[in-house]
C-alpha cells in the first residue's frame, strides 16, 4: 500500500508541475488586473521553442531559458493589446491561443519538413537531476525522489518565491493594489501600466516554462496538441486557489492527485468508480469555489478591466 501511495504522490507531482507554473502565471496577471486566457497558447509556444532550441544548443537549461523568453515575448503581445490598446483581454488572449497553435504547426513543417511531431531530442530533463541523486538513498521516500524531474523542484521553489514576492515585498503590494483599485494606486504614484506589463511578462515566462516542462521535461519532443487544454486547467486552478500563489499550488496538486488516483483506481480498489467521474472532480470543485461553497473566492476587483489614465 505504501508503495502505491508513494507512486501516487510522485504521479501527482509530475502531473501538477506544468499546471503549477501556468497557474502561478495566472495568479500574477489576474492579481494585477489582466486576465490571461492566452496561457494555453503561450504554453504551446514554450513547448515548441524549447525543442527547437535543442536543435542548436546542447544544454537543455538554455532551451528552457529560450522557452521562457519566447513565452514572455508572446505575453508582451497580449500586454500591448490589453494594457496599451485596452483591447478586450479575453478576445486578445483567444487570438493569441489560435495564433500559437497555427504558428507552431507552421514552423514545425518549416524546420522538420513534416507536421504532427518533431524528432526526439537527446539529454532532456526527464530524470531526477544528478546533483540531487543523494535524495534517492533515503529509505522509503527514495523511490519518490527518483521519479521526479528537475521541473518538479522548480515548481515548488517558484511557488514559494511567488508567495514571497506577492505578499512580502513592496512590489507585491503594488501588484495587488493595481489589481484591486488601479485609480487609487495611480493616485499614490504607482505606474499602473508598468506593473501590469511586468506581471504579464512574468506570466508569459512562467507559461513558457510550463510548456518546456511538458516537452523537454516529459516526452522529449513536441507534438501538436500535446498541451491539450492544460493552460485552461491552470486558470481554473488559480481560481480554485483563490488567486493566491500557495492556494494555486495546492489546487494544482489536488488536480494532479485526482488524475493520479484515476490512473491508479484499479489498484486502489476504486475500479468501480467511472473514470469520467474522477476526471470531472476538479472542475466541480472549481465551480463550487466560484459559487462560494468551498470558501468564498473573490476575484481581484479590477481583473479584466483595462485601466484608462485620467478617465473618470
Amino acid at each position, binding site marked *: 500500500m505504501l508503495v502505491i501511495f508513494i507512486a501516487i504522490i510522485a504521479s501527482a507531482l509530475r*502531473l501538477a508541475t506544468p499546471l503549477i507554473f501556468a497557474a502561478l502565471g495566472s495568479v500574477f496577471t489576474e492579481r494585477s488586473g489582466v486576465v490571461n486566457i492566452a496561457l494555453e497558447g503561450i504554453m504551446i509556444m514554450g513547448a515548441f521553442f524549447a525543442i527547437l532550441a535543442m536543435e542548436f544548443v546542447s544544454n537543455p537549461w538554455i532551451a528552457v531559458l529560450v522557452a521562457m523568453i519566447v513565452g514572455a515575448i508572446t505575453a508582451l503581445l497580449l500586454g500591448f493589446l490589453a494594457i496599451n490598446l485596452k483591447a478586450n483581454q479575453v478576445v486578445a488572449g483567444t487570438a493569441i491561443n489560435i495564433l500559437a497553435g497555427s504558428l507552431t504547426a507552421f514552423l514545425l513543417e518549416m524546420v522538420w519538413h513534416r507536421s*504532427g*511531431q518533431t524528432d526526439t531530442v537527446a539529454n532532456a530533463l526527464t530524470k531526477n537531476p544528478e546533483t540531487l541523486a543523494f535524495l534517492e538513498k533515503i529509505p522509503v521516500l527514495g523511490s519518490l525522489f527518483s521519479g521526479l524531474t528537475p521541473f518538479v523542484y522548480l515548481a515548488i521553489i517558484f511557488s514559494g518565491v511567488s508567495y514571497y514576492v506577492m505578499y512580502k515585498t513592496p512590489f507585491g503590494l503594488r501588484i495587488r493594489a493595481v489589481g484591486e483599485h488601479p485609480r487609487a494606486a495611480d493616485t499614490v504614484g504607482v505606474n499602473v501600466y508598468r506593473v501590469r506589463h511586468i506581471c504579464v511578462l512574468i506570466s508569459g515566462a512562467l507559461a513558457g516554462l510550463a510548456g518546456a516542462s511538458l516537452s523537454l521535461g516529459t516526452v522529449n519532443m513536441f*507534438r501538436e496538441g*500535446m498541451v491539450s487544454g492544460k493552460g485552461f486547467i491552470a486558470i481554473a486552478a488559480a481560481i480554485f486557489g483563490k488567486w493566491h500563489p500557495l492556494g494555486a499550488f495546492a489546487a494544482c496538486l489536488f488536480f494532479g492527485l485526482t*488524475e493520479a488516483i484515476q*490512473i491508479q483506481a484499479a489498484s486502489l480498489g476504486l475500479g468501480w468508480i467511472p473514470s469520467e467521474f474522477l476526471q470531472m472532480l476538479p472542475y466541480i470543485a472549481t465551480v463550487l469555489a466560484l459559487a462560494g461553497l468551498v470558501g468564498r473566492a473573490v476575484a481581484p476587483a479590477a481583473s479584466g478591466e483595462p485601466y484608462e489614465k485620467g478617465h473618470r
Partner: protein
Amino acid sequence: MSKKIISLLLVAMMVMAMFAGCSKPAAEPATEPAAEPAAEATTEDATAEEAPAEDTAKVDMVMGMITDTGGLGDQSFNDSGWMGLERLEAEYGIERKVLESESADDYGPNLTSFAEAEVDIVYGVGFLFNESMAAAAAQFPNQKFAIIDSVVEADNVASITFAENEGSFLVGVIAGMTTETNKVGFIGGMKFPLIEKFEYGFKAGVKAANPDAEVISNYADSFEDAAKGKEIATVQHQQGADVIFHAAGGVGIGLIQAAEEQGFWAIGVDQDQSHISPERVLCSMIKRVDEGVYQVGQSVIDGNFEGGVHLFSIANEGVGYSDNAGNLTEEQVAAAEKWKAAIATGAFVVPQTEAEFNAFEVPEI
C-alpha cells in the same frame, strides 16, 4: 479612435490564424507534407513504383481526402490514407487533393467544397465524419464518398472499416510470449467500441499465447495528452507490466518515451512506430488505412464502386503487425504467423467486445 485600431488588429489576427489553418489545403501540401511518408512508401512499393508511369494510361480522375483534426503528418491514419492516394497517383496517374480540418466544425464545409468541385470520390478520414458525411451524402446523391472507421448507410458511401481486433490479437500473442513478469499493459485513448476492439482483441491474443498473463488496462480519456500517457505507462510498469500496447494516438508517444527511459517494451499502433525508438518498440499493430483507401479508389477507377461496408481484415491484408526494427525472435514471428493463418482461414473469430472476450476460449491451432 484607439478602440477601432484594436478591433481592426484583432480581426486581422483572427483572420490570419484562420487562414493559417484553413487555406493550407489548397495545393502545395499535396507535395510538401507527404514528402516524409512518401520516402517510406517508396522503399516498400519499389516494385509498384517502377512499373506505372509510362505504360499505364493516365486516369483523368481527381480524388479528394479530408483529414480529421489530427491533420497530415500525424504519422498515423491520416498519413496512411494519404499514402493510399499516393499509390493510386503513382499507379494510375489520378490527381489527389487534401483538405485538413482544423476542428470538427470544418468537416461539413470541407465535404461540401469537394462535392461542389465534383471530385470523383471524397474520403473522410475518421469516424468523427459520421454525421457530417451522412448529411453530405444525402445532399449530393451523385457524389461518391468513403468514410474510414465508421459506417454510413447510404448507397453512395463506401464505409471502410477494419478488423482492429484481429491485428491486436497478433500483437497480443507476441506480448504474451515476450512478457517475463506475466503482466502486460494496454493504454486506450477513450473508452468506446472502436478502441475496445483493440483492447479485447489484444487481451484475447495474450490469453492465447500465455494463459497465465494478466492484462492491466487503462484509458487516458485523450488522444493528445502525451504527458498522461507517460504517467499511465509508468504506473503500469510499476505494477509489473513489461510489455505495453497502446491504441491512443498522441498519448502513445508518452508510452514510448517511458519505455525508453525505464527499459520495457512498447507496442506501436496503426503504423510501424519503431522509428521513434528502435530499441524499445517491440513491434506495431498495423492498420492499413492506405490499403482501404487504395482498394476503394481502384473500384472507382474500374467503375465498379459500391456503397456499403468494406471490411479490411487479416484475410485481405487490411490489418496485421510489423517489425521494421527487427526486435522479434523467429519463434515469436512463427507463432504470430500461425495465428494469422488461422484467423485468415476463419478457423475462429477474434473477440471485439467484453462479452465476446469473456466467452472466448482459446482454440487449438
